[in-house]
């Protein structure tokens, strides 16, 4: 009876252990990054308490620093091997860029603005190595902006700003139209996109309430 080669499994075991070490290291950095991101999101979300006040400042320096650390750990061709570890956090950071840009200029950031804010490249052509921003994650961040804007519409009215909901409504409609250009497959992005219509519904209800009472000047 042939004995099976024990070494085969020993090697696999060693590799699995090595991989576990790499993953632990990555997780630790991502945990710190995640914490820093949450602090900044909490910062930015103060806009809901005072929608008419100045736009809350987001400190991107901390995030950039942590992203650089992460970048050093991600080896060139293994981005997609480990990307599940940081994907959520990266999407949150992109949301920070997108939402703060909207609050300042009432538009979405361009690809270049994203790149400059985080000192990372956006992978438009499906070709980048190392740590980068997949364009799908940009799309996710846009959807998060729409989610947050439906809250902002409500809170603006509470704070006596009756003009803003209409602007928000127009913006989200445009965003939706943009997404309709894409051939979305049955994935997470699609599910989240389908959710935008509920945000839009909430926003339109606010616009309706405000205009019904003659609070908007045309």
């Amino acid at each position, binding site marked *: *009876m*042939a*004995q*099976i*080669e*024990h070494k*085969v*499994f020993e*090697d*696999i*075991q060693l*590799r*699995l*252990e090595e991989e*576990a070490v790499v993953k632990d290291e990555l997780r630790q950095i991502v945990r710190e990054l995640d914490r820093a991101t949450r602090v900044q999101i909490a910062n930015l979300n103060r806009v809901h308490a005072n929608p008419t006040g100045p736009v809350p400042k987001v400190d991107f320096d901390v995030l950039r620093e942590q992203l650089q650390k992460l970048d050093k750990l991600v080896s*060139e*061709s*293994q*981005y*997609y*091997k480990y990307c599940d570890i940081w994907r959520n956090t990266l999407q949150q950071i992109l949301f920070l860029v997108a939402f703060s840009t909207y609050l300042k200029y*009432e*538009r*979405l950031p*361009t*690809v270049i603005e994203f790149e400059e804010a985080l000192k990372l490249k956006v992978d*438009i*052509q*499906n*070709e*980048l*190595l190392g740590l980068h921003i997949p*364009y*799908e994650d*940009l*799309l996710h961040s846009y959807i998060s902006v729409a989610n947050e804007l439906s809250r902002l519409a409500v809170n603006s009215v509470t704070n006596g700003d009756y003009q803003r909901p209409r602007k928000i409504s*127009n913006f989200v409609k*445009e*965003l939706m*139209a*943009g*997404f309709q*250009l*894409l*051939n*979305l*497959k049955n994935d997470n992005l699609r599910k989240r996109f389908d959710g935008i219509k509920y945000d839009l519904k909430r926003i339109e209800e606010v616009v309706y309430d405000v205009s019904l009472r003659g609070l908007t000047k045309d």
Partner: protein
Amino acid sequence: MSNENTSMSQLFDTFQKSLDAHHDKRERLIKSVRTTLGGKDMEDAIAKQQDILALIRKVSNELNGPDYYRYIKSVSPGLEEFIEAAAFLEFIKNGSLLTPDKLQTQFAVAEIAETFFITDSDYLNGIGDLTGELMRYAINKIGAGEPESAILVCHFMQQIHEEFEVINAISPSAVSKKLQVMKASLTKVEQACYSCQIRKVEQSANSILPQKRVALSP
């Protein structure tokens, strides 16, 4: 307003192309991998193996650099199925375990891209599934009146099971699911071999007794 409008649709235009390219590639890979499934008869298995290797070669050309880890998840089910079948063939021909090295040699002979390799998890899953196939094989052998070959298979499975248990102790996520199924298959074969042995002893006892009676009777 109109200015904002065009920038938004421009933005989405760029994403559209990349997103389509990504989905096309994923679907193409899934499709070509699906054809590798279900090639498991012993009859011209070797010829079929060559066909499958040719398919893998096609797939391997699309999985360069960062794309490897991005799309390997779409290819894995087919690869695992192939490893299972190839390992089964190897066992029947030579009574030995198909090692990753031997697989890689097969790949080299079939001129599959050098950058393409089998991940440990694909290998482990393939070998895990192999034990299910071995179980059916062993039971059939017993049915065909060849309990000796069934016992050989049983020993082979026991060795694989041992190795998997060691790996499970260190990184449970890699094999825990397969291990449960494997344990069930192994128990079944062990039980069948046991029954065979009992029956054999019983039979020989029965065949001895009458002779003794004949000898004692006068």
